[in-house]
């Protein structure tokens, strides 16, 4: 199995292309009758879908993964855990799911990048949806602990304040 396209994408941090590359490769390998399930990078494949917010495809991929792989590879289960929290809209749970697992070096890059992206999206959501919000909830949604939320991000807090005044 030729993973060069996948490795190139990972090396150049083009994480948004990972899902397509993995899907195409999986179909190709499958049509050649190769038994690929044991060696397939399911964790990266799942995270590829999660990165582009395609939780539907992540769900279907999870359903396709054989039980044996789910039992033997805790990283795959942990990757799906993030997807599950996103699916059930457990906003704070996503951060917990990212933090509580010790990610392997291949996967750390994409997880860290996704974590940043998700925090940014959550921040934009909070700014557009809330006129006032408690520091505790802000901390939960942005994956910070309560003190951090109160102290950090002063510049972004001020931009937030300005948008509030404009409303």
């Amino acid at each position, binding site marked *: 199995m030729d993973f060069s396209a996948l490795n190139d994408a990972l090396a150049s941090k083009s994480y948004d292309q990972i899902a397509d590359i993995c*899907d195409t490769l999986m179909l190709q390998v499958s*049509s050649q009758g190769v038994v690929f399930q044991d060696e397939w990078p399911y964790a990266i494949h799942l995270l590829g879908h999660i990165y582009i917010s395609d939780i539907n495809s992540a769900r279907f991929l999870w*359903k396709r993964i054989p039980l044996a792989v789910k039992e033997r590879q805790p990283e795959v289960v942990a990757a799906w855990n993030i997807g599950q929290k996103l699916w059930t809209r457990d906003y704070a749970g996503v951060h917990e799911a990212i933090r509580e697992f010790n990610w392997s070096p291949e996967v750390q890059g994409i997880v860290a990048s996704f974590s940043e992206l998700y925090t940014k999206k959550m921040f934009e*959501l909070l700014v557009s*949806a809330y006129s006032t*919000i*408690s520091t505790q909830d802000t901390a939960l949604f942005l994956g910070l602990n309560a003190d951090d939320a109160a102290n950090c991000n002063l510049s972004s807090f001020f931009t937030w304040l300005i948008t509030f005044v404009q409303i």
Partner: protein
Amino acid sequence: MNLNMNSVETLVAQIQGLSGSTSDVNHLHTLLKQLEELFKSESSRLAPLLTELDPSIHSLGYLYILEACTSAPISKEQASELVLSVGRFINLCSAEQIRVAPDKFISVCKRFKDQVMLLEDPMRGVAPMLTALQKLQYSSEQLTTLHPDFLLLCLLAKCYKTGLSILEDDIFEVDQPRDFFLYCYYGGMICIGQKKFSKALELLHSVVTAPMSVLNAIAIEAYKKYILVSLIHLGQFSSSFPKYTSSVAQRNLKNFSQPYLELVNSYCTGKISELEAFVQANNEKFESDKNLGLVKQVVSSMYKRNIQRLTQTYLTLSLEDIANTVQLNSAKEAEMHVLQMIQDGEIYATINQKDGMVRFLEDPEQYKTCEMIELIDSSIQRIMMLSRKLTDMDEQLSCDPLYLGKAGRDRQRFDFDDFDTVPSKFTV
């Protein structure tokens, strides 16, 4: 007539010699058609010939021999090999050559799909089937018999995203009605899986309103899903059919979908407890139709509808009041629902957590941005293209002998203008 060594060699030589230009290929086609009987009787001995042919250059000849080889029943062990060899042929064959004999190609691909299903590994067939239908099509506007088979494999293999890619093409040519029904039905299911409810509604609508002289099972199942998707996406369902629906469908479809129409009535009361009770009572019926998942989505969409309805009456509302009106358990749950709806763009509002209030806002879209202008422009282009196509079809149809025959029969023999007025007096 036995296939002796001489005729085998001549056959191979002819295929190799006549696979160059288009006229050669047509000549070869005529020859091959004459040898149909031979192929049928000697199917078991033809396999070795394939090794002497190159599937990319001698596609037509290869196709005929492959079709004959695959017509015989094979064991499960051989199935895997067959799947591999047909898959290889599909990848390498020349599209121009196989389009000369589309029936043979379709026959090979259908057998390929049957073997893949027997092996219980539908994913193996997805990529080859996609390549096959792209080579068979004259243009992306043509629906081939392979389209529904491809979508079925995508559904079974849970490769919904791959299936979605061909659903974006507009179809203008359909060969067989059955293909169209299946294509739209499976396509609708794929869109439902990817939560593209608008496109799903369009496809299911096409099945329900398509011309049919006899009711078919596909239309019945599609109607059931159509009702459910309509509730999820639009929050309502109109049981009256558009004028262009066939009379067969209009008279009969509702008889087969009674529980679903009752679900619509229950939904329209706006009371979540009633709806849940109804679903509970009819659980088995929905489950046997394999629609239980969709029905559950209908139930959860009701909270959204009820909250949306509130925006039409109130400018601000407390989270407590929302929770009570919509029958949620707590203000916090109501806050989460509203937040999710804001995230999905289904509502425009801001939450004031300090006071526990929600303020409903107007749609901020002012239709002034570049993206909006591009969207409108592309819609206009699309409609102009559609209009041109419709004009062309109208012109073609007005020259069609069948149409003229029927239209001529229904008209009077002479129009009033055919009679000249005869002057009663000549003035000199």
